C-alpha cells in the first residue's frame, strides 16, 4: 500500500537535489569554515553562498542572515536576544497561538522578571491590530507574532502589525517557520526586524534554520562561543546542513508560484469534500487567509489520535494539533484560543499537503476517512448523549 504523507507541516522529506548538494561537504570538502587554509575557505565559500540563497528567499541582505540549528533556536535567539539587549524594558507581547518555541521562551523570561502579554485571537485565529496597539507600553521591548500558524494555517496581517510596532519604536519578530518557502515574504516590504525560519519545513534538512536580523537591531547572542556568524552565533557551522538549506530555499523560490496554486486547489478540494461528506465537521482556521497547504477540521464525537491511528493503518500520515505536542496530553492551545470546546479541540485532524501530494492522495483520504469516522462514532459515548 502506497504511503500517503499528509503531514508536511510537521516535517518534509529532504529534496533529493538538496541531499545531492549536501553530500560533498561531509567527507570531502569537510574543512572548518574558520580555518584559513584553502580547505577551510572552500567550506566558508559554500556557507556564504547558502547565506545568499536564504537571504534571497525573503529579500534580505546576506549579512542579515544568521544560521541556527532550527526554528526553535531562531525563536529563542530573537526573543532572549532582544530581551537581554534592552535591560530597561521588560515587557513582551505575543499572540496566544504562538508555537511552543515562542511561548515557552516567554514563560522562561516571565519567571525571570519579564511581563508577557498573550493577545487573544478571533474565531479564525487572527490577531486584532488594535489589541497590539493598545497593549504597547513604554516598557515593551518586543512584539512577536507568527507569520502563519502551524496548526490552523491562519496568516496574520504581519505588515500591519509590524508597522504598529515600528511606529511605537518596538522591535517586531515573526516566526515564519511555516510561511517561509510557502508564500512570498519580503522583509523590507513588511518591515519586520527579526524573522525565524527552519529548513526542514521547506524540503531542507532537519537541524538547520536561520534568524533574519535587520541591520542595526540590538541583540545579545544566544549561543555563546567562537566568533562564527560574524560574532553572533558560536559553534562550528553545520556546513552540509547550511548548504542544504540554501539549496532548498532556491528550489522553493523557483517553485513557489506554481505550488501555491496547485496546493491551494488540493487543500480546497479536501476541505470542501470533508465538509460535504461528513456531518458535524468544523473548519479550523481562516477560510481564505490560510496557508495553501493547510486543512484543519474538528470532527465531532471522535478523538483525534484514534483517527490518526486508523489513518496510519491505511498508510495515511496526518496529525492532530502540533506534532510537537503529541506527547503532551492537553488539547491544543491554538484550538482552545479559537474558542473551541475541549471536546472539539480533541477532535481535530490536520492534513497538510506538499510538493508530492497528488489528487489521488486526497481522493484516497476521502474514501477512507468517512468510514473511520463512522466506525469511531459508533463507539463514541459522546454521540449518544448528544442524540
Amino acid at each position: 500500500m502506497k504511503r500517503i504523507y499528509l503531514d508536511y507541516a510537521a516535517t518534509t522529506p529532504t529534496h533529493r537535489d538538496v541531499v545531492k548538494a549536501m553530500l560533498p561537504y561531509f567527507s570531502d570538502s569537510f574543512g572548518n569554515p574558520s580555518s584559513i587554509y584553502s580547505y577551510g575557505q572552500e567550506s566558508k565559500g559554500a556557507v556564504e553562498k547558502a547565506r545568499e540563497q536564504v537571504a534571497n528567499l525573503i529579500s534580505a541582505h546576506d549579512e542579515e542572515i544568521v544560521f541556527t540549528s532550527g526554528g526553535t533556536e531562531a525563536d529563542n535567539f530573537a526573543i532572549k536576544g532582544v530581551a537581554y539587549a534592552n535591560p530597561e524594558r521588560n515587557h513582551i507581547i505575543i499572540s496566544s497561538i504562538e508555537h511552543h518555541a515562542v511561548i515557552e521562551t516567554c514563560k522562561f523570561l516571565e519567571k525571570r522578571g519579564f511581563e508577557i502579554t498573550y493577545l487573544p485571537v478571533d474565531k479564525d485565529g487572527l490577531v486584532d491590530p488594535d489589541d497590539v496597539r493598545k497593549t504597547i507600553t513604554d516598557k515593551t521591548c518586543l512584539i512577536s507574532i507568527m507569520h502563519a500558524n502551524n496548526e490552523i494555517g491562519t496568516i496574520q496581517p504581519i505588515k500591519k502589525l509590524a508597522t504598529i510596532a515600528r511606529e511605537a519604536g518596538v522591535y517586531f519578530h515573526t516566526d515564519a517557520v511555516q510561511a517561509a518557502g510557502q508564500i512570498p515574504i519580503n522583509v523590507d516590504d513588511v518591515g519586520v526586524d527579526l524573522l525565524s525560519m527552519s529548513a526542514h519545513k521547506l524540503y531542507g534538512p532537519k537541524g538547520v534554520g536561520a534568524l533574519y536580523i535587520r541591520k542595526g537591531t540590538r541583540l545579545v547572542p544566544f549561543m555563546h562561543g567562537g566568533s562564527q556568524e560574524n560574532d553572533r552565533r558560536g559553534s562550528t557551522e553545520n556546513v552540509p546542513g547550511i548548504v542544504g538549506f540554501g539549496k532548498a530555499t532556491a528550489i522553493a523560490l523557483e517553485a513557489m508560484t506554481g505550488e501555491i496554486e496547485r496546493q491551494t486547489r488540493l487543500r480546497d478540494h479536501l476541505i470542501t469534500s470533508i465538509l460535504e461528506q461528513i456531518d458535524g465537521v468544523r473548519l479550523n482556521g481562516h477560510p481564505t487567509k490560510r496557508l495553501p497547504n493547510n486543512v484543519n477540521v474538528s470532527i465531532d464525537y471522535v478523538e483525534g489520535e484514534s483517527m490518526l491511528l486508523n489513518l496510519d493503518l491505511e498508510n495515511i500520515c496526518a496529525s492532530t494539533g502540533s506534532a510537537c505536542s503529541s506527547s503532551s496530553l492537553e488539547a491544543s492551545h491554538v484550538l482552545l484560543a479559537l474558542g473551541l470546546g475541549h471536546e472539539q479541540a480533541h477532535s481535530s485532524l490536520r492534513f497538510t499537503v506538499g510538493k508530492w501530494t497528488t489528487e489521488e492522495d486526497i481522493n484516497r483520504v476521502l474514501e477512507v476517512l468517512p468510514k473511520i469516522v463512522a466506525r469511531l462514532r459508533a463507539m463514541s459515548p459522546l454521540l449518544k448523549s448528544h442524540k
Partner: protein
Amino acid sequence: MPDIQSLYSEKVMDHFRNPRNVGEIENPDGTGHVGNPICGDIMELYIKVNGNTITDAKFKTFGCGAAIATSSMVTEMIIGKTIDEALEISNKTVAEALGGLPAAKMHCSVLAEDALRSAIDDYHSKQKKGKSKAKAKKK
C-alpha cells in the same frame, strides 16, 4: 533501512483495530461513566451480573488508541469473573495484559480501572436499593 516501528504493542493495536464488546447493554446491572473532556478521554462501561459473576460487559469510549484498547481489554478480562475477582484488576494488570503501554499513555489505563470500579459501585448500590425494595415488598 530501519524496521517498522509503532507507538503501541501488537496486542494494543489488535484491540484497537478489533475492539471487543463495543456497545451498550440494555438494562445493565451496573454502569460506569468516567473521564472528562479536558483530558480528552471519556469511557462508559456496562456490566451484566448473574449471581456474583459478570456475565457480560460492553463499553463506549472517546479517546486515544490506548484508551480504546484498555477499554476493550478490560471488558474481555472481566467477563466470567466474580465481582471480587474483577476488583483485583488494576490499571497495571490491564496494561500488562496488553503487552505494555508507552509511559506517556499509562494514565489511560487508569480510565479503564476507574470505569470498572465505577460500574461495580453502581452495581452494588443498585443491589442495595433492590434489596431494600425486596425487603419493603416482603413487609
